[in-house]
């Protein structure tokens, strides 16, 4: 097989940053991934702003659209729009030079559709606020906003994954002995995986919260979900999501120890900063929340150490799924409180005492389905990796 070295010049890392080189056709793929990274970071900022906004509404009942969490949210959107422009320009250039890669095409389209939804939903959200006052968590504009964030995050993640898989696939065909170069690429590859997966996790987490938290009853509309359905959704959805994302990150991270722990720790840190720290009465319970690192660490050890892949996947999924109630502290209190006490509202300063008062009675009821969904999530992660045709690459990388 003959390989044109110029075709693979984009794989070469420049010694210093040269803008002309960066803008040259041979670096089209790098620019595409850069754009995807910006979209992911933008969605991460938006999701963090959204989570902070929920806490702000619970604590301070703001009466204006123009609040700091809203500013953070829409700053993320602005960054994502900038990323979209780079993605689209790079994609058009890439298609004109190389073949039309289906993964890159899908990634570009998803990012475009997602950002378009955000751009359309923003002004509608403002108009809704102006007409009906401050809305609850679930409202038509908010649903469109969140859907746009999910689609954009998904597209950005696909773009990042397809860059990495294209990078290693061609390299492995080009050079036989790659151990040094593959190890070098880990320093770029792993952070990209975190940047790609974390916003997707946060936005999907927000979607489950939107349909399970009782924060949508306002003066004009009551979009609050049925309490029992909400509790069922939370019990099944959160464990599935936690287990899927962490096991997926394990597979993408070349099945190395530490990837799951870092991914889980990042999520816990963001959640703690946006949902716990703003509420002064919850700050003493930070120790409890950070303890959630233990099941994540246990799963990481199990997945990376065990030779029996199937058993380690099942047990890890079980561990991660059954710790969802603690990982979703404190907002999960509202979901189960409504079922047990018929009251959807809990005073912010009584949130921790309500949670710890009910944890003993709620957990035995939810641990079974949660553990099962955790296992399902872990199995699903493997299936998705196979579907994305990344398994052979990961197997080869693991041996390097």
């Amino acid at each position, binding site marked *: 097989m003959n390989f044109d070295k110029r075709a693979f010049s984009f794989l070469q890392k420049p010694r210093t940053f040269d803008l002309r080189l960066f803008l040259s056709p041979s670096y089209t793929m790098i620019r595409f991934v850069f754009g995807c990274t910006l979209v992911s970071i933008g969605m991460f900022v938006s999701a963090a702003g959204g989570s902070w906004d929920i806490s702000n509404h619970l*604590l*301070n*009942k703001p*009466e204006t659209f123009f609040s700091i969490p809203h500013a953070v949210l829409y700053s993320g959107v602005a960054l994502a729009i900038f990323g979209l422009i780079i993605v689209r320009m790079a994609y058009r250039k890439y298609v004109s030079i190389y073949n039309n890669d289906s993964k890159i095409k899908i990634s570009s389209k998803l990012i475009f559709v997602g950002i378009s939804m955000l751009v359309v939903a923003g002004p509608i959200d403002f108009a809704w606020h102006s007409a009906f006052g401050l809305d609850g968590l679930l409202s038509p504009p908010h649903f469109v906003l969140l859907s746009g964030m999910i689609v954009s995050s998904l597209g950005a993640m696909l773009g990042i994954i397809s860059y990495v898989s294209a990078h290693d696939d061609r390299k492995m065909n080009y050079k036989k002995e790659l151990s040094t170069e593959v190890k070098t690429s880990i320093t770029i590859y792993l952070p990209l995986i975190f940047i790609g997966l974390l916003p997707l996790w946060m936005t999907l987490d927000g979607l489950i919260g939107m349909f399970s938290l009782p924060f949508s009853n306002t003066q004009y509309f009551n979009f609050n979900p049925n309490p029992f359905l909400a509790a069922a959704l939370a019990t099944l959805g959160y464990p599935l999501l936690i287990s899927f994302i962490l096991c997926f990150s394990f597979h993408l991270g070349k099945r190395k*120890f*530490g990837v799951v*722990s*870092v991914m889980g720790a990042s999520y816990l840190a963001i959640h703690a900063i946006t949902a716990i720290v703003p509420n*002064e*009465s919850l700050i*003493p*319970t*930070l*120790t*409890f929340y*950070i*303890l*959630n*690192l*233990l*099941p994540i*660490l*246990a799963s990481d*050890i*199990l997945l990376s*150490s*065990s030779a029996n892949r199937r058993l380690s996947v099942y*047990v890890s999924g079980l*561990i991660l799924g059954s*710790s969802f109630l*603690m990982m979703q502290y404190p907002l999960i209190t509202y979901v189960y409180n409504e079922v047990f006490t018929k*009251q959807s*509202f809990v*005073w*912010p*300063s*009584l949130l*921790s*005492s309500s949670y*710890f*008062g009910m*944890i*003993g009675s709620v*957990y035995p009821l939810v641990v079974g389905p949660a553990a099962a969904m955790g296992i399902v999530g872990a199995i699903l992660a493997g299936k998705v990796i196979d579907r994305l045709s990344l398994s052979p690459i990961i197997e080869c990388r693991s041996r390097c």
Partner: protein
Amino acid sequence: MRIVVTGASLTLLLSLLVITVYAQSNETQIWTDTENNVKILFTYSPKNPVVDKPTVLHFSVFSGGGKQVSSQNLLTGTLVIITNSTGHERTFKFNHLHTTNGTFSVKYLFPDSGFYQIITRINSNNPPSISLASFSVIVTPETGSLSFIITLLVIISALVAGVTYFVRTKHRYHFNKRTEIFILIVSVSSLVSVYFFLSFYIFPHLYISLPRLKPMPEIHDVSLSSPVVGIGQRFTLTLSDINIGDSADFQTISAGFPNLTTTYGFVKIIHSDFIQKPILIKKDEMVGSSYQGTGNLISAKYPSIEAFSRPWHSQVTHHIEFEITPISIGRFVILLKSVAFPHLNQFAHFPLNGLRDYQSEFVKAYSILVVKDRKYLHTRSPN
């Protein structure tokens, strides 16, 4: 290795955070009553009160200038100790405490570990004044077993993680497969067991006994621009509301107008520095009662205005000024009250007692005389 060391360090640091929840600070607590120009200092001994052992609670009262009160000033005090450490609220009262030198002490045996709120009322006869103050005491378990258990478990977790990594990387070729699997199972089981034990047994016990915030609203500086007005003439009502207790999630001040059927056109808010906009409650609108918020709704008998802040931090004062135009001759009554939420005890509303309104909540009544013609009042002879 870096991940393991970082993780272990983090968990150890955070366990110290837990221990500091129960750590005692014997700094002197100072309460400043700006309205009466009085400072109350509170200390207790021993530094770390223990369950069922005597603790001396010591109070010193100073005037605003920092001088202890004079011997001519007789102070009488009432002390209420409130705790919710066992899940039920319990109170203990000390009555008729007297002092002429501005200091007094009591001995008390704390029956359980947890958080205690000490509420003090100091009556002074020269000048006559009443000061309310709130202090707190945290009582640790006798043996400190809880913090000991947490520290031990955290050390176990760190050791397990370290051993696992050590076996995997340094000595993997010295152990056979079976031993490796055994170590793996033990390490994962230990981590998971520690996690669930802490999450379901230790931390719930720890956090349920944490103090609940106890806000204490107080209305002061109520002033009416005139005690008498002519019909159709306007007068202003100015008042301030302060939270002299812990931060409230939500605190409201309500002005009810039983002489009116609507506030529209008759009551105007001239100035308000509350965080949120005041709301107008119309007659027959559904409102909460008996300090239960929306838990017990009844129909409003007369219109009112509620100004509120969410949250309302400790020692923060908000002001509001109304312009009112009475429409009928006679006594024009305004009923004022302030309620803090969560409403957990009898100090979370103001006034503490007295007249009750239709919501079964205590109110303080203010009134002015509305006459046909204000000039008529001045020229009329006493006979």
